[in-house]
């Protein structure tokens, strides 16, 4: 995983795999030199046994292959900067993944293009209700799939032009 944007795409992909219909992505930039991301979904959730085995790269629910690297990669990227990964989950309710990266640390991965990753998640998964929150020092920016969709009417959200528009809006904040 080259940068933080990749991790956000990857963790959100897990929510999609869990059958979530609503996904909230919060990006908190209020603490200097720290980037915190909270991804919450209403997917199938996990038992505490499953949550405790997530850090093991040889644990996966997949049947097609024997490794699951997304979470172990994330833990590595966060912990090598002094940040952390916290996962809370309840079966039938959903999952929350919170991770923090100390961006001033020499081992911190680059931020990458977070605006583009978020725009692609939102328009690339048209049936999912995304809610994106970006917390800055003095303000909070909120963008919801439903808001965009109601403006677009019968035009699908997945048109490239829409993706580029959302990306340009997010770029003002991140």
């Amino acid at each position, binding site marked *: *995983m*080259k940068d933080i*944007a*990749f991790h956000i*795409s*990857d963790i959100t*992909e897990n929510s*999609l*795999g869990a059958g979530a219909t609503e996904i909230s992505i919060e990006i908190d930039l209020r603490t200097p030199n720290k980037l915190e991301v909270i991804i919450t979904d209403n997917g199938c959730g996990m038992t505490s046994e499953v949550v405790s085995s997530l850090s093991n790269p040889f644990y996966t629910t997949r049947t*097609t*292959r024997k490794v*699951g*690297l*997304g979470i172990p*990669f994330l833990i590595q990227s966060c912990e090598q900067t002094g940040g952390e990964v916290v996962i809370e989950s309840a079966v039938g309710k959903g999952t929350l993944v919170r991770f923090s990266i100390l961006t001033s640390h020499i081992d911190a991965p680059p931020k990458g*293009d977070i605006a*583009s*990753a978020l725009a*692609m*998640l939102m*328009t*690339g*998964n*048209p049936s999912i209700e995304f809610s994106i929150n970006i917390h800055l020092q003095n*303000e*909070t*920016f*909120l*963008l919801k799939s439903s*808001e*965009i969709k109601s*403006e*677009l*009417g*019968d*035009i*699908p959200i*997945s*048109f*490239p*032009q*829409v*993706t*580029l*528009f959302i990306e340009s*809006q997010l770029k*003002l904040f991140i």
Partner: protein
Amino acid sequence: MSKVQSLEELRKMRDQLRNDLDLREKSNDPESVIQIRVSMGTCGIASGAKETMSTLIYELNRQKIPAVITQSGCMGYCKQEPTIEITMPNSEPIIFGHVNSDRANEIIEKYIKNGELVADIIPINFSTPY
């Protein structure tokens, strides 16, 4: 709490898209635009699927080719990532493997615009266990 600042811009875009694509008549037929799915599992993302998707979004918009671009999970072709699936109107889907940005451009030029096939097509006509 600030919201999308330029909803007006979004409405203009909607109207323009409607005109460009003549969707009003075609909207009953989802097959009328090109559908592209980019595989975005851990394997896809780690091999650069994000750049591939960015390139597709940028180029298709620039060339005004009517297409919708969505994401999918791992399609099971981890070895050939990044992979994309293209469904042309009224055609069978075709999966292309090893699609970096350059190859994405090549696929737009050759397959999407001219219907020519390019290398690294993954045969999907046989049934797979995925």
